[in-house]
Structure formats: structure tokens, C-alpha cells
């Protein structure tokens, strides 16, 4: 055997596989995608004493070797050695949950036919002890004919033993004791036979049965109660949103002032001209518009990770399933859609937890209808300028009511669009909800931090590169060609962006948009909130963002009619204007067709909504 050992980690979902992977590899891991499929690939490496290198891949969790979802197909093919996505394996580490032996043992028995050496990591020994379960690992090893190493991945217990078993010396001893069966082709033993055998082994290995985890049972009595449960879920969500918007405020302000300081420095030290403009308005503004959302997204992800690791996420899906089914969605679509209120990008990424492909697609398609944080600056500007802040009733002000209404319109349209899609394009058998509600666990800081770093990196890479790139392109469009010396209009009027915008006016005039709006929509493609800055540029305002926003409100009051302003608001409820969302949708659906469909239907809805708003308001005035 050469000096590199290729290892795959397999097991049922919720067996603690990921914690074991983290414990084995630490920060030496890479998370990416398998090409062509939207299945996450987690790979890492570690060194065994005396210099052997172990390359380990954490295969997607599966309950059996019969694949049901794209994730399980990857696991199946890699284990069978028919996949071109991974190298052939030298050994398989099968993670078994000590608190729930029987189904896990059945899976281990199923692996026997692979003809590969298999090591069992008998994980969660601490939880087993907590529940009073007593097992005989030696007997398990004897019955399975595989080496068994008891582990507690979250406390790194048994990890060294597992690593040591890969060393050259241990290796030869180990596989003298245990023989590897030859590959079995053709149909294996039936599921029922495997189950019978697993039942026998589990009974033989269990010294003491233990009692049901009392805490999980007591917590579920509250959390899954049909009346208290939804209230509890609501308070969790309230806390989450409070955190996303309130806690992120300070770090967002620091990032903002940091970027502005850098812009001031560049203005001071770079010679005025193209380079200065590129750095200040292109690069720095581009980086800034991405990084500014990072605090919100990290807080959101931290909540999602904690909810997932604690075992609550599956329960939220359980509680929401009935309501989500009414809209043709699945309980699991709830969290992705919720995340989309901060930003559609993490929402679309979170849709991966939906195992049914058509449901996942529907969820991705409607995610941009949830009012994301980037729309807020646009809403705030227009509402402040055009909606009187009168009290409607009992202290409720009209401005707040309009803002609330815009959120509701987004949600209702998402539900309608999802319902229509499910009846037409994503039609199919009603998807099933079949999932395990895992035991409650205290999330581990280590897993949380690793998960957070990984998602931050993904966000910056996916959203960052595309936003930065498009900001620079849009900067180019807005800067060239330069205005003639006798210019009477603002510079942007003469630029390529201005010309495109004015050409677009033909399209947008029927829904009440003037050329200024049409021009601002072009740079607004980078990110929705950029439209505010772009309007500032069009109306030749300068100064800090806040100053632009407040003086812009005054300018708009005289420049726009009320129907135009309201049409603009309606446009932004639906507008497909976010290149990064489209880029992520393209990645996650792996289809240009669906991405084009998303853009098309959002554009059509935005156009119709803005037009209807414009003409109705006009008729009423």
C-alpha cells in the first residue's frame, strides 16, 4: 500500500458524521461542490504518525445503499467505485450512533458487500451513557467482523485511536485480524433479512437497554405542542430577526466608515482621473456593497447553524409543514424562505436541505420575492419622500403601514407563484415529508465556528466575485464615454449606462418611469440598494450616502409624480435586479433555463405591478 490512504466517511444522517469529520481534519478541510450536481463535497486530510497521509471525504448521509436523492446517488456511486467524482477508496469509516444501534448496524451490514475494509466508529458514546445504554463494542466487532472504535466526536474522544488505526503498523495487524469479504455483485440480501440480522446483533451487543432520553421527551412536549409549539417558533424567529437587524447595525456602521475612510484616502493620494474614479467608485464601492451585508448574513447563518445542530430545525419544518403544503411547498422550505428576508443568496443556498428536487426548485424560484434587506434603502427613500407620516389609527402611522404592506405583498406573491408553479412547471407527485426529528443536543462551538467560516467563504466567493465584477463593469458603463465639454446634463447622461437607460425608457415609459429612473436601473443591477446611489448620481448630488439620501428625497418630491413613485415601489417588490441572486440561482439549479425563467417571471411581475400601480393611481388622482 502506498503512502496515501483514501478514506470515506459514511453513515446515517444525524450519526454525528460531520462532527467526526471536523474532529479528524480540523481546519484542513475543503468544502466545494461535486461538478454537475448540487451536492456539497466535504474533503480533508490529516497525517498519521510516521508519515502516512490520509485523504478523507465526508460522503452525504444516507439511510441505505439504495439511493433516493442526488446526495445519496453520490454516496452510492463513490462507495460502489462507479463514480468518476472521487478516487477509488482504500477504506470506509462507517459512523454508527450508539444510542440507536439497530438501523445503523443494518447499514453497516449493507456495506459488507462493497469488498472494502470497513472500520466502525461507534459514535455518541456519551449520549448513550446519558440514556443509560450499555454496549459491548468487542461483541459488536465480533458480530460484524469489523474493527470497532468507540468515539465521542464532539469531545474528540477516540479520535486518536481512529487516526492510529490508519498507521502502517496498525494497518497490517488490523487486517490480519479482520478479513475483507470479496465484492458481491448482483442483488444483495433483502432489506428484511438485513433487518433481522441487525436486530439480532443489536440485541446481542446491548448489555443494558437504557431509557428514552427524558430531556428530549420533555422538551418535545412543549416544542411540538400544537398550540405552544408555533408560539415558541414565532419567538425564535422574532429573536432571529431582531438579531439580524439590531446586532448587525454596529458592525455594518464600522464597515461603512472603514470603506469611506479608504475612499477618502484614495481621493487624497491618488491623482484625480480615471484610476482614482475606478478605485473609489468601482473597486471600493463594489467591495463595500458586498462586505456591508456580511454581518447580517453571518448572524443569520449562526442562527441557522445553531438551530440545525440543536435538533430544532427539523421540528420547525414539522410545525410549518401543513401551512407550507397549502402553498404547494414543503415544511423544509420554511427556513430558506425565512432567510431570504435578509438576503435571497443564503436563502437559495439553504434550499439544499430540501431533499425533493422539484420542491427545492420551487423554493429557489420564489426566494427573491421575500423582501431582502437590500430593498430597504429603496423603500425607505421613496416612503420618506412620498408617503405622509399621518396616524391612520391607534398610533399606527401610514409610512410604517406601507412598509409592512410591501412585505406582505412579497410574501403573498411568493405563495401564489409557488402554488402556480406546483400546478404547472414543477408539477409532480405530492412530495413526502419523511424525516427524523433528532435528539436535542447542545451545539459545539468548534463545529459552529467551522460551519460559519465555511459559509462566509462561500458567500464572499459567490456573491463577492460577481458583485465586484459587475460593479467594475457598471462603473465602466457609467464613466465612458466622457461627457462633451459643453455638457448641460449630469455626466452619466452621456455615458454608455445613460444611453442604455435612455434606450430603456421606451420600455419603461408606459409604466410611468422617466429616463432618470431607467438610467438608475442599470447600475442597480449589481445590488438593489445601489439604485439609491445611482439616482443620486443621476440627479447630480454628491456627498456622503446619508446626505445624498436625504437631499434626494427632497429632489424626488418635485421631480417625480406620486404615481411614478408608487410604481417605482411596486417595481422593487418584484424586480429581478440582483445579479448575484441570479448567479447563485444559476449555480444551485445548474440550469440557465431556470435562471432565465426566474429573471423573466420577476421582470414580468414587476412590470405589470408597476404599470398597474401607475395607471390606477393616475386614474384616482
Amino acid at each position: 500500500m502506498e503512502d496515501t490512504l483514501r478514506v470515506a466517511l459514511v453513515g446515517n444522517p444525524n450519526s454525528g458524521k460531520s462532527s467526526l469529520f471536523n474532529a479528524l481534519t480540523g481546519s484542513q478541510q475543503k468544502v466545494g461542490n461535486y461538478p454537475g450536481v448540487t451536492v456539497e463535497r466535504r474533503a480533508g486530510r490529516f497525517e498519521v504518525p510516521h508519515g502516512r497521509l490520509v485523504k478523507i471525504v465526508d460522503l452525504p448521509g444516507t439511510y441505505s445503499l439504495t439511493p433516493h436523492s442526488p446526495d445519496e446517488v453520490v454516496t452510492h456511486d463513490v462507495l460502489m467505485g462507479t463514480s468518476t467524482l472521487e478516487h477509488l477508496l482504500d477504506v470506509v469509516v462507517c459512523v454508527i450512533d450508539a444510542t440507536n444501534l439497530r438501523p445503523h448496524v443494518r447499514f453497516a451490514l449493507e456495506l459488507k458487500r462493497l469488498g472494502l475494509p470497513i472500520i466502525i466508529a461507534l459514535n455518541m458514546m456519551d449520549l448513550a451513557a446519558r440514556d443509560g445504554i450499555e454496549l459491548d463494542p468487542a461483541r459488536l466487532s465480533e458480530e460484524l467482523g469489523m474493527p470497532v472504535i468507540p468515539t465521542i466526536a464532539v469531545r474528540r474522544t477516540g479520535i486518536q485511536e481512529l487516526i492510529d488505526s490508519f498507521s502502517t503498523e496498525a494497518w497490517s495487524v488490523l487486517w490480519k485480524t479482520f478479513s475483507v469479504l470479496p465484492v458481491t455483485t448482483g442483488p444483495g440480501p433483502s432489506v428484511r433479512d438485513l433487518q433481522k440480522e441487525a436486530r439480532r446483533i443489536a440485541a446481542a451487543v446491548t448489555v443494558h437497554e437504557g431509557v428514552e432520553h427524558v430531556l428530549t421527551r420533555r422538551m418535545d412536549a412543549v416544542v411540538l405542542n400544537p398550540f405552544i409549539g408555533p408560539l415558541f417558533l414565532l419567538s425564535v424567529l422574532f429573536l432571529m430577526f431582531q438579531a439580524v437587524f439590531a446586532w448587525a447595525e454596529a458592525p455594518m456602521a464600522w464597515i461603512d466608515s472603514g470603506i469611506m475612510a479608504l475612499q477618502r484616502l484614495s481621493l487624497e493620494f491618488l491623482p484625480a482621473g480615471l484610476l482614482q474614479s475606478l478605485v473609489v467608485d468601482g473597486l471600493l464601492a463594489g467591495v463595500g456593497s458586498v462586505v456591508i451585508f456580511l454581518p447580517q448574513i453571518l448572524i443569520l447563518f449562526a442562527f441557522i447553524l445553531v438551530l440545525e445542530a440543536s435538533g430544532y430545525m427539523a421540528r420547525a419544518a414539522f410545525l410549518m409543514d401543513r401551512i407550507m403544503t397549502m402553498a404547494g411547498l414543503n415544511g423544509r422550505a420554511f427556513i430558506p424562505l425565512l432567510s431570504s428576508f435578509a438576503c435571497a443568496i443564503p436563502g437559495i443556498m439553504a434550499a439544499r436541505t430540501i431533499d425533493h428536487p422539484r420542491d427545492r426548485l420551487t423554493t429557489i424560484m420564489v426566494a427573491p420575492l421575500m423582501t431582502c434587506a437590500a430593498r430597504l434603502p429603496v423603500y425607505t427613500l421613496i416612503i420618506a419622500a412620498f408617503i405622509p407620516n399621518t396616524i391612520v389609527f391607534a398610533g399606527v402611522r401610514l409610512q410604517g403601514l406601507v412598509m409592512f404592506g410591501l412585505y406582505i405583498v412579497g410574501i403573498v406573491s411568493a405563495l401564489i407563484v409557488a402554488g402556480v408553479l406546483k400546478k404547472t412547471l414543477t408539477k409532480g407527485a405530492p412530495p413526502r415529508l419523511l424525516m427524523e426529528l433528532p435528539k436535542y443536543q447542545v451545539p459545539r462551538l468548534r463545529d459552529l465556528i467551522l460551519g460559519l467560516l465555511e459559509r462566509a467563504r462561500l458567500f464572499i466567493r459567490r456573491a463577492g466575485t460577481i458583485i465586484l465584477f459587475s460593479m467594475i463593469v457598471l462603473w465602466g458603463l457609467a464613466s465612458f464615454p466622457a461627457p462633451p465639454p459643453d455638457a448641460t446634463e449630469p455626466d452619466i447622461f452621456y455615458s454608455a449606462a445613460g444611453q442604455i437607460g435612455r434606450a430603456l425608457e421606451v420600455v419603461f415609459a408606459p409604466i410611468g418611469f422617466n429616463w432618470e429612473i431607467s438610467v438608475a436601473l442599470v447600475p442597480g443591477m449589481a445590488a438593489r440598494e445601489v439604485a439609491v446611489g445611482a439616482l443620486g448620481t443621476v440627479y447630480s448630488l454628491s456627498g456622503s450616502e446619508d446626505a445624498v439620501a436625504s437631499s434626494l428625497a427632497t429632489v424626488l418630491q418635485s421631480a417625480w409624480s406620486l404615481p411614478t413613485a408608487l410604481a417605482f415601489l411596486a417595481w422593487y417588490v418584484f424586480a429581478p435586479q440582483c445579479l448575484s441572486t441570479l448567479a447563485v440561482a444559476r449555480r444551485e439549479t445548474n440550469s440557465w433555463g431556470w435562471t432565465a425563467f426566474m429573471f423573466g417571471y420577476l421582470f414580468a411581475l414587476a412590470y405589470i405591478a408597476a404599470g398597474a400601480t401607475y395607471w390606477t393611481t393616475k386614474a384616482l388622482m
Partner: protein
Amino acid sequence: MTSSQLITLDLLPHGLSARISKIGKGANAVENSEPDLEELLLGLGFEEGASVEIRHQGPLGGPLAVRVDGRLIALRPADAAAVLVKTAPSHPEPVLDA
């Protein structure tokens, strides 16, 4: 002696424990639906002889949370109908004095 009753899992009263006697196709079995319900249920531990008990139901007639041996599994009532269970007599028959 009370004979134990054979009913579908969705009709099992909450909190009453029973044993699985058969996994069928389900009430709303869909022809050619890719993942076979029976297979999925077997994978999650719904096997003949396993003890089951309905623990919770989601609001508005939502899914059931069923304890199957050591696991808590969420599934919709329509799919639970595919599982035939045998209830143990809930109260032991009063033994008449001999």
C-alpha cells in the same frame, strides 16, 4: 382474551404503543413515484415487529411525530396509513376468579 387489533398507523390513538405488522403501499400511493414509500419507511426503521407510538401531531392536522424504536420520525398521516400496526390490548383483561 381480547384479540389485538389491526389498524393503520394514522388511526392509532396518540400515546398508545403498538407493533408494526406490515408495511403496505399507502393510501395515496402514486404509481411510479421514484422513491418507493415502502423502501423509505424501511430505511427509517419502520420494520415488522418494531414498536411504534404516535407522540405529536403538527398544528392544523399536520404531520405525525412517531416514535419507532429509538427514533422520532415525522411523516404525514396519508403516508402513515401505509403502516399496519397491531395494538396490544390497552388494559389487561380482568381475570375472573377461577
